[in-house]
């Protein structure tokens, strides 16, 4: 609108007797709009400042990966090296190990996790005594309430070489040094992961099973379908949209890993890197233990960019299947 006003000549403006009234009205409307919007901006301001500091400034931080950072002359003056950091990173054996571990653990856990979560949800739905079910549900969810540090204490109580429950009960004569034997850790981490996450991941399926029309089961029973057949032909097909959704969402996060589980539960033991190093633990170690900002940021940017692409792709698939469940 302002543009239109400017193109008019002053003479033309003065010629209309209503212009003054119109102008006043417009100004009043704009003032009202400002008075309406300004408090909202003010309310959002703290959040915006936080988003800028916590999310958007670090996004520009990905530029660090293309520089040879020298803090003594400052990040801005540090020379550009473009893809050198990435080249160095992918020439190391670490890169292959951490990518392999991240992907392998995620792939196996996504599939196993889905099977376990659905199985638990089916069992919970079968428990006829609802009062017992109402006690069991919070109990199996409780492990997800404790931090990775507490988790590491629990695992240590089982695996400590000298006092640990496992060594004292089963390997008394030849104790196994768990924290130095990388070959056991895929199993240990799997057990710990499912101990912690089973309850939480089954809850979503429990909610979906609760939403299935009971009439379907009644009809199946009248037709003589066994419980097993009811599960195969009613429950599982009804859960399929949710399964697809969860699968796609977890595929979007396949380059991410639980830092606490992979770093703190193995107690950061260097002898276990072969099976416990993931991209997240590498980024941390390169940054704060090796002080290698270049490698750390290269791995971090690699993870962020691939993660972004995967989230977009998986979300596009989610949109195709169920528009309401899509993130955007």
């Amino acid at each position, binding site marked *: 609108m302002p543009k239109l006003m400017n193109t008019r000549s002053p003479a033309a403006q003065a010629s209309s007797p209503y212009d003054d009234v119109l102008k006043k009205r417009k100004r009043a409307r704009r003032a009202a709009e400002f008075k*309406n*919007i300004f*408090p*909202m901006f003010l*309310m959002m301001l*703290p*959040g915006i400042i*936080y*988003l800028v*500091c*916590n*999310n958007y*400034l*670090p*996004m520009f*931080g*990905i530029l660090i990966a293309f520089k040879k950072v020298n*803090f003594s002359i400052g990040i801005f003056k540090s020379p550009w090296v473009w893809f050198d950091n990435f080249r160095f990173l992918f020439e190391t054996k670490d890169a292959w190990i951490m990518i392999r571990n991240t992907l392998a653990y995620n792939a196996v856990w996504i599939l196993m996790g889905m099977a376990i979560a659905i199985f*638990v949800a089916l*069992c919970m739905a*079968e*428990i*006829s*005594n609802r009062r*017992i079910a109402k006690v*069991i*549900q*919070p*109990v199996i*969810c*409780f492990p997800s*309430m404790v*931090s990775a*540090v*507490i988790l590491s*204490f*629990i695992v240590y*109580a*089982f695996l400590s070489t000298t006092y640990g*429950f496992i060594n*004292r009960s089963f390997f008394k004569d030849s104790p196994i040094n768990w924290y130095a034997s990388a070959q056991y850790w895929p199993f240990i981490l799997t057990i710990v992961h499912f*101990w912690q996450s*089973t309850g*939480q991941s089954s809850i*979503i399926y429990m*909610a979906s099973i609760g939403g299935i029309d009971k009439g379907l089961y009644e009809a199946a029973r009248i037709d003589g379908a*066994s*419980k*097993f057949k009811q599960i195969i032909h009613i429950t599982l097909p009804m859960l399929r949209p949710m399964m697809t959704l969860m699968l796609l969402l977890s595929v979007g996060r396949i380059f991410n890993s639980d830092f*606490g589980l992979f770093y703190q539960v193995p107690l950061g*033991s260097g002898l276990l890197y072969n099976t416990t190093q993931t991209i997240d633990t590498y*980024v*941390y170690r390169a*940054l*704060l233990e090796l002080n290698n900002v270049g490698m*750390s940021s290269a791995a*971090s*940017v690699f993870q*962020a960019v691939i993660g972004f692409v995967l989230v977009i792709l998986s979300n596009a698939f989610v949109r195709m299947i169920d528009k309401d469940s899509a993130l*955007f």
Partner: protein
Amino acid sequence: MNDRKKVKAPAIRDERLFHNVALVLMALLALYCLAPFFLMLSVSLSTEQSLNTGGYSFWPKEFSLNAYDYLWSKRFTIGRAYGLTILVTVIGTLTNLLLTSLFAYPLSRKDFKYRNVFAFVIFFSLMFNGGLTASYIVWTRIFQIKNTIWALIIPGGLMGGMNILMVRNYFNANVPYSIVEAARIDGASTFRIYWRIMLPLSKPVMTTIGLFAALGYWNNWTNGLYYITDTKLYTIQVYLKKLMDSIQFLKSSDVAAESAALAFKALPTESARMAIAIIAILPILMVYPFIQKELVKGMVIGGVKG
């Protein structure tokens, strides 16, 4: 009549079998989920000698409260870490709720024409992040947050994009827009509408995200790991982590056996360590029965869109 019975009987038997198998399996799962906590409790209640000779077990071989006596003797160090954790949790949670609802409210106002722009700003921050290295450099180099209490509160957890969208959706779905319009016609200011109408009407969703925020702050140990080296600023989780570190260090280091033994003596005993871990989960354990319903609700919403 006879015919019908024949058809129905196996189905009922089959169903009962299913019920019982499911019940047994789930009871076992519940036991499996709880057993590790019993082991911790049992270790913390054992005498040090019995642990040295018999190792960790699910029932204390010799019962003693020595570990908890030790905690009492260390009440200034541990109490400080504990108090700091409470302080951080309270400040962090309240600020989180305030920032989240303040941001979500304008997003739900249909007369706010920039609401989609800001919603996109939130979406994008959820999809893409600069990663740990960049965040670390921003917080330590630009904001100089290292070894201050702010490092425990601000990075990461102060405001979550997912929560904002959740609260916005709640506002949209559960607070009729006509109430807001009526209030505006009566001359209520935007802030007054937020404070007097939106917040009281959104208690359920605020409770849920508040609980998750509090849990997140109580359990947070990564901020302490990244930004804190000053022992005075250890939260209980960081304190426990550093304790574990020093044990591992002494076990793996080549320091002379004598000095290692001496250093070991300065550390809390095996049972005392478990006792500290127990008191770190105690607050969660105490409130869990009362808040689990809210948490489950949050998990259903957050699990899909998280």
